[in-house]
């Protein structure tokens, strides 16, 4: 593992990665076990939800097919609307903030950059490690969902599950990359995490309150969360245009961070 910046980045997080992987697995099995009970009472729930005002339904992203009566509907509401992207975002943002700014604050970035390696290369490898680690948690999550789905008879389509997890990983990478880039720009880990956290929260609120608050509706499409959630990938599969927007965001933010990192002084 200790052959490259990429390998070392994953190596140094091997314990935390194991916890994340184990934790997501356990959580999903637990969540799955709640499904049969909810399904029994689904009819009642749906009557109640039908009476929700449209704005409230939009707030919880209750698109057509959102129902506790079906496995996909249950996962869409209980997992993909908030919890899973949140978990992945927390992981990716922590990873991103530590990758450059964390190492700079520790002083170890000096050590790495005194070796014959460019800053751009260090950033690229750290970025790749963040992508791989986040995807790794995504893959394990996906497997856990499919196991829970089979065990609790959720009637899942594996392709849809994979698509939804993929979208959640992408939105996490948008914020992970933002945190990485802010670290590149400022060299400050706490600031990178704090600002990214605020931006992620704002992105979520803009999307979910858009139906209720008029002026938010007009800027809804400026929120990255829109390109994750609006297409409801668990229920309808991926919308490729939205995937494209998220990928473009990741690339643009990473490049911006890299351009500043190349030019600035590193802190002692």
């Amino acid at each position, binding site marked *: 593992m*200790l*052959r*490259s*910046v990429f390998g*070392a980045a994953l190596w*140094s997080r091997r314990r935390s990665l194991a916890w994340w992987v184990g934790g997501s697995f356990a959580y999903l099995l637990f969540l799955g076990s709640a499904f049969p009970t909810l399904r029994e009472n689904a009819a009642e729930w749906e009557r109640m939800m039908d009476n929700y005002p449209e704005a409230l339904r939009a707030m919880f992203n209750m698109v057509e097919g959102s129902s506790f009566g079906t496995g996909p509907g249950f996962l869409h509401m209980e997992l993909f609307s908030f919890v899973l992207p949140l978990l992945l975002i927390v992981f990716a943002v922590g990873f991103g903030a530590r990758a450059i700014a964390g190492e700079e604050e*520790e*002083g*170890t970035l*000096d*050590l*790495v*950059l*005194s*070796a*014959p*390696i*460019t800053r751009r290369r260090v950033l690229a490898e750290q970025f790749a490690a963040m992508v791989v680690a986040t995807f790794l948690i995504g893959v394990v999550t996906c497997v856990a969902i499919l196991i829970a789905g089979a065990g609790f008879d959720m009637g899942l389509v594996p392709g849809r599950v994979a698509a939804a997890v993929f979208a959640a990983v992408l939105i996490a990478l948008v914020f992970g990359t933002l945190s990485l880039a802010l670290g590149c720009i400022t060299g400050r880990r706490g600031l990178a995490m704090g600002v990214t956290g605020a931006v992620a929260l704002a992105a979520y609120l803009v999307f979910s309150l858009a139906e209720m608050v008029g002026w938010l509706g007009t800027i809804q499409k400026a929120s990255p969360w829109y390109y994750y959630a609006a297409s409801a990938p668990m229920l309808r599969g991926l919308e490729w245009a939205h995937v494209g927007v998220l990928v473009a965001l990741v690339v643009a933010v990473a490049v911006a961070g890299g351009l500043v990192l190349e*030019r600035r*002084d*590193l802190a*002692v």
Partner: protein
Amino acid sequence: MEPVIRLEALTKFYGRQRGVVDLDLEVYPGEVFGYLGPNGAGKTTTIRLLLDLIRPTRGRAVVLGGDPRADGPRLRREVGYLAGDPALYRKMTGRQLLTYLGHLRGMPSLGPAEEVAARLELDLDRPIGDLSRGNRQKVAVVQALMHSPRLLVLDEPTAGLDPLMQREFYRLVAEAKAEGRTVFLSSHVLSEVERIADRVGIVREGRLVVVEGLEELKAKALRRLEIHFGGPVPREEFAALPGVQDVVVEDGLLICTAVGSIDRLVKAAARYEVTNLAVHEADLEELFLRYYEGAGDAA
């Protein structure tokens, strides 16, 4: 001879705060150059400019014939760097860290690193976070030396090393010099540089005030002496000696400052019964002040 390091009006400001100003310097192959100055004088700033960790405000540095930024990876392949108060990955063992840095340098074998580690009596199998300050310093020394770089840039290299290990370190530096490598090392203590440097540059408040051969510098070095005599001694006799200043005699105790050699002073004292003799090296700040005063008198 093409210098290994050439600084041309190298200047660095952090915002409005002074880093270093108009440094002009050449360091030649095979030379051990001592870069001396009090804390905060700009030593670390200079070194970080050489490594391209920070960028000059104006002027430039040429290292191994190249630009630290444009030719960064090529240059750093041949540079060994020891940071002042070096930060290391605390969860790695020494061996893991050296393996990692070795791979970044394209040298998969740890052989040379292990040799240096053994000479410094460093245990490579303990996590770095568990090591004492001195042992962490040894890890940092090993990583700077392990690839036999053409240029060694060492920021306060012996900080934290015990005297025995300092001696071993000086041997390593002497060997590097014997092999034709160039060493640029900073320190805030003259005596440290005195032992190994061929030439010394003194930096003060961001400016290089003196670059001199060690012998010339030693000739001007100040020492404070305390001589305890068995009985009273005449002050005038000592005050009249060349290079002896600030003579104070109280009972049997003589305190004075000597410039350069203390030979005459010791010989003069030897005519009386000496019960104790203590020599204190003047600190750098004092050395600077005297140096300027001396220059002023001569002018």
